């Protein structure tokens, strides 16, 4: 039996320059309609001049292992993809918005065609053996899609010696975006 994948994303904030190429690549790859986004950049500036620090964070759906959007979906439109991702089946979605209310990360929006939409880790590309569009386009190699179940050591190599931050872990969602500080 084939090994079950568990995709996650490791994001190196030291490399990120906040160029938003990931956002535009995603919009183009997934035909994200105007006025919406599947991923976004948060820029945080702290301190007093001249001692300022800037942090750029590329953010998207956390593909939680214990996803409240999945447990609150009344029609199973939001579901676990079986490869560590959380996916949406537009054909099952009624647009009731329970998943949007349930998401602690505000990762979802309603597509003008009437279904909930969000980052899918470009599942259509993963199936072809490609990386997500944002990962492919990132000019500073900030974004890394990793398989936490694999033995290739990629995730460990990236995280070694670095402070690793996750968002709202206390929500109990077991998120799968890891930011390297």
């Amino acid at each position, binding site marked *: 039996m084939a090994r079950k994948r568990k995709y996650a994303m490791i994001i190196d904030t030291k490399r990120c320059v906040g160029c938003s190429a990931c956002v535009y690549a995603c919009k183009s790859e997934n035909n994200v309609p105007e006025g919406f*986004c599947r991923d976004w950049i948060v820029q*945080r*500036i702290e301190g007093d001049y001249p001692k300022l620090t800037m942090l750029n964070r590329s953010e998207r759906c956390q593909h939680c292992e214990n996803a409240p959007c999945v447990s609150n979906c009344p029609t199973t439109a939001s579901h676990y993809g079986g490869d560590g991702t959380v996916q949406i089946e537009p054909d099952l979605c009624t647009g009731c918005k329970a998943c949007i209310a*349930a998401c602690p990360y505000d990762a979802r929006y309603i597509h003008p065609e009437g279904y909930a939409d969000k980052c899918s880790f470009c599942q259509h590309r993963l199936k072809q053996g490609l990386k997500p569009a944002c990962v492919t386009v990132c000019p500073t190699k900030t974004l890394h899609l990793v398989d936490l179940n694999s033995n290739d050591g990629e995730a460990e190599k990236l995280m070694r010696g670095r402070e690793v931050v996750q968002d*709202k872990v206390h929500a109990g969602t077991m998120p799968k975006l890891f930011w390297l500080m």
Partner: protein
Amino acid sequence: MNEVLSNKLNPQVLPHLEIWAWEVPIYLFLGGLAGGLLVITGGMLLLQKGGLFGKKSEARDPFTGMIQIGSVLSPVLLGLGMFFLFLDLENKFHVWRFYTAFVWTSPMSWGSWMLIIFFPLATLQALIVNERWLEGFSLVNRIIQPSKKHLNLIAMINVHMGAGIGVYTGILLSTFYARPIWSSSILGFVFLMSGLSSAAALVMLMAPRREKLMFSKMDMYFISLEGFATTLFIIGGITGSENVRDAMYFLISGPYAPWFWVVFVMGGMIVPLMLETLEAIGRIRFTVLVPLLVLTGSLTLRFIIVYAGQAFPTFA
């Protein structure tokens, strides 16, 4: 300096990213009203002579006008509420998808299936108690006659189903822990009591003068419990974790505070309770102001909870 810039779009900037607008609070109000009416009319059927808890071995009392009207209004108002819920759906052609799955962790799934039981039984009660108006319709009579002798059982189920729908309107919101204002399990009890109180108010508004006092006294009881539940809701919030506490302060002292204190607490509970007390001791005559205030307070409660819940930042 601490400056955060984000190109993430949010509903404060773009209203089309709002989760639920006016349709959902109206549904929650009508759902509570319909559930409350079913509890009250079902309860009256069980308590009257010949009812399950009424005097035994006596013929059943004739159904009062309020039992008749209340029983009809319950499924009608719920149907109307469902229409507003339908309006809120972004993909209206997929409404049937609610019935292709049962997800036990999703309150919305429970609610959808509960309605499947609510509607036929509430309608059956409405038909049975209005039998004398329906004599000419043979098809309807074919449903009424065999089910008539089970009226006690139907009323018994309906009382519970009505309470279930009332609680459900609150639980629907309270399982979303991502929205800290909603994330209180007592919200179900607050909405149930508010629904019962507004149902008593609606019946009070329509009842003949000699029956008004009974419903007014019933409402006093419901308002008192609603006040108790609301107090617990507030205490639970301000003694909660930082996130929950800030959310509760946002509700009771933020931009929605005037609506919360003046329209809901004062107008929807304290003033009606005082006027009903004066009515009960015979100091004043019945005034339509009381039921109108209660109904306005109840509708306002749904609006401020739904709106404030979304306006306060997501779970931190």
